[in-house]
């Protein structure tokens, strides 16, 4: 139970980062933290079924469910793609406006730079 509460806390930290921080890079970090908390939650869920790793060597039985692990591989790669694209967009905004602060960017865009 404690690990689930910690994961919820991790998710909330990421969400707080997205909602409350002004710096675009910190918002992207928040997105990453949320992604990681969900990945760990899925792996944790899959491990409820058994105890050994799903590598079927001689004498291995009572394995954990490998399906969430395989799905989370996909989620990790897509998380990498999202952060790369988000960082590139943030950098582009920085080049255009000279700041990472989201409110400054908004103000500058309103005033037509």
């Amino acid at each position: 139970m404690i690990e689930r509460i910690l994961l919820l806390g991790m998710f909330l930290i990421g969400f707080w980062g997205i909602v409350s921080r002004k710096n675009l890079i910190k918002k992207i970090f928040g997105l990453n933290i949320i992604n990681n908390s969900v990945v760990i939650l899925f792996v944790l869920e899959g491990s409820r079924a058994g105890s050994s790793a799903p590598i079927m060597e001689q004498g291995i039985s009572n394995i954990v469910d490998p399906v969430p692990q395989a799905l989370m591989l996909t989620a990790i790669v897509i998380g990498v793609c999202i952060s790369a694209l988000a960082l590139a967009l943030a950098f582009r905004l920085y080049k255009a406006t000279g700041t990472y602060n989201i409110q400054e960017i908004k103000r500058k865009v309103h005033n037509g730079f």
Partner: protein
Amino acid sequence: MKQKAINVLTIISLASVTLVLLPLFLENSPWPLSARNYLELHGVGDSGAINLVSAIYLGFRVFDTLGETIVLLTAVSGTIGVLTRAGAVLAEGYDTSGTPALTEQEKKVIMDDHTFTLAGEKRRSHALRTHLLEVVTGVLGPVVLLFGFYLMLYGHLSPGGGFQGGVVTASGIIFLALGNRIGAKNPLIRASVLDRIEAAAFLLLILASLSGILMGRGFFGNPLQDVTAIPAGYIILLNGIIGLKVGAGIGFLCIAMVGREIS
């Protein structure tokens, strides 16, 4: 006053997200065992891979993997497109004639006055790249590359696989890029080479996915199913191709993000 209003809004949104997610995170219903039990009994026999995670993402759910590689390809193209337009990429192969050169002031900030160069040493040095970092990463790079290829090719037997091996290979490429000497031309850290490797690996993946059709097994059918000597041969092949593609793609992204070369 405005700051306070924002804080109240933050707390309200955090509380509502907690309210929505609490049952999701704390739910404790019994885990459905049918998929696990089937895989435990038949997974190795059906796919030939001892590592059941590999068996799933390259056997039972291989369409997923194809979609994922397409997402990676799209993300790499999008990121490079956005970065190139922003004038940040000075990696070889891009037209950066439009970007202004560094001013003397900027050069002075980046070049550290206190860095020293030993006689005969062929490394650039500035504040962001110390000698220690460059020597260690340059020596470690090939070892990390080798470990990445080990993870790729033994993914069906042990923890690892194409994606994991690819990411480790990408770290090896970044190490090589950080430890690069001035004289040595390492083709592995050139963006033009890496994007060709990625494109070629994607073409190979498509060809490998079509190869089953020739044997009458359909898209992503295993052409080596009747060859009992290497039951996991198709999975090894796909792992290698995906590893190359992921390694080249993520290495390319990171090298593009390392940014402006100081010459």
